[in-house]
């Protein structure tokens, strides 16, 4: 009896491991493919840089990477633009989300529930609806085309107050009694916020900043609209998407792969280091709604 149970256990464990290995292969395949194909040269004398029907390049070459750093395109500029946007958005968005969350979690003021309901309803409008209007508003301030980078930062940061849910949920779990005790001792609200609540909120601060930092790397839609036609203010998503979509650029496919690797590596490393906080935030947010 015991023996057959153990046997059964071993068999089910074996099946589980095989399934997991298959899943891992499927999940890793695109990344491995991306990496391998980034080493295929686009130089017609060596190999073809477009779409081919084999995975492993016939000749190992760093041509694509050389091309990206050579200054033939504005790749470094696009990369820098994206980093600037991501860093600024991460900093300012985190500050705004923290402010809003603290106010909504700790203070009771007239219009509080109205504000929360109103923002909830606003969030139900599709984001792209307002694109032309935002474009025009930015244009008024000279923040399109050449000024697209600060413009994109402004738009992302301005509306970020509505994304307070996860952070407020976290603040709600910090006992109010702590605040009250400090207030009785004569601390002002601002002091409580800066010296008590914030130091206790490291996980949620990191989560908010991380999510804010990741988003601009994927921003194709609005970025392409705002920076339209001005190569210097593209971000990596806008610039490299062209390489994939335009059929004339078929030979650009491997260059896209190389660029993709360069974009993916730092973001992925950062994410993996801070994974713990991300999981905490996502799980907390999902359960509380």
């Amino acid at each position, binding site marked *: 009896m015991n023996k057959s149970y153990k046997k059964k256990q071993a068999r089910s464990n074996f099946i589980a491991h095989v399934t997991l290995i298959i899943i891992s292969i499927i999940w890793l395949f695109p990344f491995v493919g991306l990496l391998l194909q980034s080493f295929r040269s686009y130089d017609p004398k060596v190999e073809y840089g477009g779409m081919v029907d084999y995975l492993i390049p016939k000749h190992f070459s760093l041509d694509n990477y050389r091309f990206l750093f050579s200054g033939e395109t504005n790749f470094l500029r696009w990369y820098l633009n994206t980093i600037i946007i991501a860093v600024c958005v991460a900093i300012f968005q985190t500050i705004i989300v923290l402010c809003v969350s603290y106010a909504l979690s700790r203070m009771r003021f007239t219009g509080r529930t109205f504000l929360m309901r109103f*923002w909830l309803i606003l969030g139900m409008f*599709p984001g792209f609806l307002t694109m032309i209007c935002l474009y025009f508003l930015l244009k008024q301030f000279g923040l399109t085309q050449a000024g697209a980078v600060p413009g994109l930062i402004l738009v992302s940061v301005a509306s970020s107050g509505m994304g307070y849910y996860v952070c407020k949920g976290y603040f709600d779990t910090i006992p109010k009694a702590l605040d009250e005790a400090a207030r009785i001792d004569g601390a002002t609200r601002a002091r409580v916020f800066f010296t008590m609540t914030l130091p206790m909120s490291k996980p949620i601060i990191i989560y908010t900043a991380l999510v804010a930092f990741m988003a601009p790397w994927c921003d194709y839609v609005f970025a392409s609209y705002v920076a339209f036609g001005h190569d210097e203010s593209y971000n990596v998503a806008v610039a490299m998407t062209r390489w994939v979509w335009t059929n004339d650029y078929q030979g650009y496919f491997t260059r896209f792969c190389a660029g993709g690797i360069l974009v993916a590596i730092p973001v992925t490393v950062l994410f993996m280091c801070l994974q713990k906080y991300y999981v905490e935030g996502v*799980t907390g947010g999902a359960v509380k709604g």
Partner: protein
Amino acid sequence: MGDSIGKVLSPIGGAITKGDWKTKVSIIILGFGQLLRGQILKGLTFLALEAAFIWYMVGFGGKYVSKLSTLGTVATQKVGRKTVYGDNSFLILLFGVLTVFVILAFILVWYLNIKDNMEAERLIKAGKRLPSNKEVFASLFDNNFDKTLLALPVLGIFIFTVLPIVFMICVAFTNYDKNHQAPTNLFTWVGFQNFQKLLSFGSSGIGRTFVQVLAWTLIWAFFATFIDYFLGLAVAILINKKGVKYKKLWRTILVLTIAVPQFVSLLYIMKLFANDGLINGYLMKWGWIDSPIQFWVDPMLARITIIVVNIWIGIPYMMLIATGLLMNIPEDLYESARIDGATGWQMFKSITLPYILFVTGPFLLTQFTNNLNNFNVIYLLTQGRPLSVKMAENAGNTDLLVTWLYKMTVNDTNYSMAAVIGIMVFIITAVVSLVVYNALPSVKDEEGFQ
């Protein structure tokens, strides 16, 4: 209701009938009373707001708001070789809406000013001291800290979210399309004409296309949400299973999908499934197929491929959440079930699933509404293609309402119809959210499972 209106209006009536002269002057010159009573900080703020309002209305807002009813009458003309610009309907509508908001905001400031005056009078009559300038300022970091914290975020949301949304809702009732582009041409109010066009099924209407796109949007959201949900849960349980080694490694591999920017991974996958892509290439080389499988060309196949690729995106996310939740289920529940001779499937059915479904109800709802608007996956993979001759307004077979809206805005500059579709998306999202939210077990019965 009547009571609360009376309560809100009473300070105004009180100020006119019972207020002292300082208060009465304050009805017209904001902040006057506060200044005379020594509350310089408050007084100056109110006065400055009034000055700014007048300056705005005279120099800027007035001329726009007065044309709001027609959106401009003077068309741009060519006189000889010179272009003489007339009214710009876009500006009139945008700044007209802004001015309406400014007027409303000023009325609020005016009301607060009167209320503040009456309060000061009451305090003086009761023989109490008015808060000094310093105290008023200090309160912004204490009892009124919420105002300090929220001022900037609220202003930002107003300018970059509220104002544009109201503007676009207005556009839905105009004929702002490619034949009526500001500043060259005027556009004007047309009432519900656009909505009629969207919902009419005749030859001129686009009702049939709308229903088709809507149906696919709902089908997509349903599959994308629930397939990912259950498969993600399954993978989480699999990794959590006793006896499975390297749990962390498996999780890390899956989480890579979240870490790598979607435009890189999705565009690569799009090329992977292309007719000349790797998958077709290998299948043909191995002789399994003779001609490429039309992953992105055949409408039905394209839809299925999108849902399959989305599983690749969605499972890791759900896996993370489920892993956290699975650890919360008390182990003794399983223990006692095992003693009673329950099988694995029975335990899953009567312990794990009910618990997970209960806690993740709100999450499922947000996932569903997010998927209704899941722009990235669709646009990076197919851009709504394959196109169909049977569909109006350049809609494609895999277009969601949002991608259709986007294409209408960017490619066809058909702004009024895009606005109408945006409103439709809003209505659908709102209805789904409301209905489902109120039916959720975790909302109905908060105490369950605790």
